C-alpha cells in the first residue's frame, strides 16, 4: 500500500513553475542540483526547512506556466513526498504523474490544512488524514488509466511494459 506522511509546507494560489525552479537554473537537468534552488523565488527558506517526506499543500492552479519537467523533478528531489492542491495546471499534472511524484486534487484539504500540520496520505483510497487537526478528507480519485501509470511508477515503465521490453 502506497502511503506518505509528513509535515506540511503550505503555499497559495497560482504557484508557477518559474518560482518552483527559476529558468536561470535550467542549464542543468540534474535533480539534486535543481533541488538546491527549488521554490527559491517564492520562499528562500524552503530548501533549508524541508525534510524528506514533507507534504506540499497549495491552492488553485498549482504549477501553472512553463512545461519544464524540472519543476516536479526539483520538488521530488527536495524530498517532498506528495503535493496536495485545490487544482493543478494541466502540464504540471501530467508531468508529476509521468515522473512518479504523487499529487492529489482536494479543494477541501487544501483549504483546511495549515502550515506545519502532520498529514498522512493513503494513495490507494485517496484519503488524506490530518493528524494534527484530527480530520479526514477525500481526494478526487484518479481514473483507472492514470492509476495504471502511477502503479507502473510513471510513463516510461508503463511504455516499456506495453512494448514488452524487459531488459
Amino acid at each position, binding site marked *: 500500500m502506497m502511503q506518505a506522511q509528513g509535515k506540511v509546507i503550505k503555499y497559495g494560489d497560482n504557484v508557477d513553475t518559474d518560482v518552483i525552479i527559476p*529558468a536561470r537554473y535550467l542549464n542543468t537537468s540534474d535533480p539534486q542540483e535543481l533541488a538546491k534552488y527549488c521554490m527559491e523565488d517564492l520562499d528562500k527558506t524552503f530548501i533549508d526547512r524541508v525534510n524528506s517526506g514533507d507534504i506540499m499543500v497549495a491552492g488553485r492552479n498549482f504549477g501553472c506556466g512553463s512545461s*519544464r519537467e524540472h519543476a516536479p523533478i526539483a520538488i521530488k528531489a527536495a524530498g517532498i513526498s506528495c503535493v496536495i492542491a485545490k487544482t493543478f495546471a494541466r502540464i504540471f499534472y501530467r508531468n508529476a504523474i509521468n515522473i512518479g511524484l504523487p499529487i492529489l486534487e482536494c479543494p477541501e484539504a487544501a483549504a483546511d490544512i495549515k502550515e506545519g500540520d502532520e498529514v498522512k496520505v493513503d494513495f490507494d483510497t485517496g484519503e488524506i488524514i490530518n493528524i494534527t487537526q484530527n480530520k479526514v478528507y477525500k481526494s478526487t480519485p484518479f*481514473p483507472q488509466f492514470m492509476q495504471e501509470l502511477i502503479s507502473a511508477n510513471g510513463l516510461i515503465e508503463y511504455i516499456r511494459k506495453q512494448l514488452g521490453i524487459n531488459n
Partner: protein
Amino acid sequence: MGMTMTQKILAAHAGLDKVQAGELIKAKLDLVLGNDVTTPVAIKEFNKIGVDKVFDANKIAIVPDHFTPNKDIKSAEQCKYVREFVQEKEIVNYFEIGQMGIEHVLIPEKGLVVAGDVVIGADSHTCTYGALGAFSTGIGSTDMAAGMATGEAWFKVPEAIKFELKGSLKPWVSGKDIILHIIGMIGVDGALYQSMEFTGEGVSALSMDARFTITNMAIEAGAKNGIFEVDDKTIAYMKEHSQKPYTEYKADEDAVYTKTFEINLDDIKPTVAFPHLPDNTRTIDNVGEVKIDQVVIGSCTNGRMEDLRVAAKVLRGKKIHPYVRTIIFPGSQKVYLQAMEEGLFKDFVEAGAVVSTPTCGPCLGGHMGILAKGERAVATTNRNFVGRMGHPESEVYLASPAVAAASAVAGKIVSPEEVM
C-alpha cells in the same frame, strides 16, 4: 451530442468515430517538438525506454532556442547532447543556429503543422499552432520521450469554451490586446483543462500573425489548447508554407461548450497585464504612471512581421527615452531577413534600439536582457511571473508591440496615440 473542433481532431487521431469530454484516449501524433531545455531531459527518458529508433524521423522537430546562441558552458553542453542525439537518430527537422527561430514562430513557417494535425511539444506555448486549426498542446519531457518512441500520446478529451468574435479592431489594437483582454476576463485558470475555440465573423479580419499571438497565450488561461476555425487566410498560409495535406474540422452545431463568450472587437482597448500574473490586466487608459527601464519586443508571442512592422511604425523618426534599453527579437531568420529588407532595422537602430538574433533569451530570464532588482520592463512576451525576466523583485508588464514601442519612447507605459 455533437463534438467541438478539438474533439473531432482527437477522435480522428484515436481511430474513433466519436469522443466525449472526460474520456481518456490514445492519439497518433503528427509532430513531436522539443527545445534545448526540455529535450535533454526527454533524451534521458527516451534512453530508458530501450528502443533504438524514434517512431518517425520526419515527425520530430527539435529547435535549440532557449539559451542559444549558448549563454554559458552548461547550456552549450545541453545543446551538444541534443545535437548528438539528433545526428544519431537522424532526426530531419533539426534547426541549428543560422536556420533556427523561436520554435513557435519557426514551426508554422517551415510548414510542419497544418490544420487537423495533432501536435505535442515539450514547451508550454506549443498551443500556438491552434491558429492553423490543429490540435496542439504543451507537454513535459517524459511525454516527449514517449511520443518520440511510440508516436502516440494519451489525452483526456477536453471540454471547451467558445469565443465568438464580432466586429473589427480599432487602430493600435492587436491580437495581443484581444488575448490579454480575454485572460483578464476569465483568469489564469479560467480555461483550466479546457479548449479555447475561437470562431465568429470577427475572425476573418484577423491576420494569421494575430491568430498565432492569441492561441500562443491560451496556456496563460490554463487551457489545454486554443484553436481557430480554418478560413481562406489559414488556407492561403498553409499553401504558402507547407506541402502537407490538411483537414478542416468545424464544430458540430450541437457541440457542447461549458461557456460561450461574445467578444466585440470594437470594444477592445490596448491592454497591459501588470505584475505578477497575465490576468492582472488594465486597459491603457487605466495604467497610471509606470516608469520603465527596459522594453522587449519579440518572442514566440509577438516576434512576427506584423509585430515588427507596427513597432517600427511607432519608432520611425523618434528617439527612445535615454534611460530605456530597447531590445528587439525577430522570431526567426525568415522574419529577420524580411524585416531587414523592409528597412525596419534602420528605424529600430536610428531610434536607439538593438536588434538581436532570434532567441527566447529575456522572456524567461535566460540571457540577453536580464532585469536587476527593482527594474521594470514592458515586454511583448507572455508571462510576468515573479522573477520571470530576472531578479525576483523586478517587474514585467505584458503589452502589444505598439504599446511597447510607444512606452520605449515615452520612458513610461503609454498608448501609441500619445507619441504619434
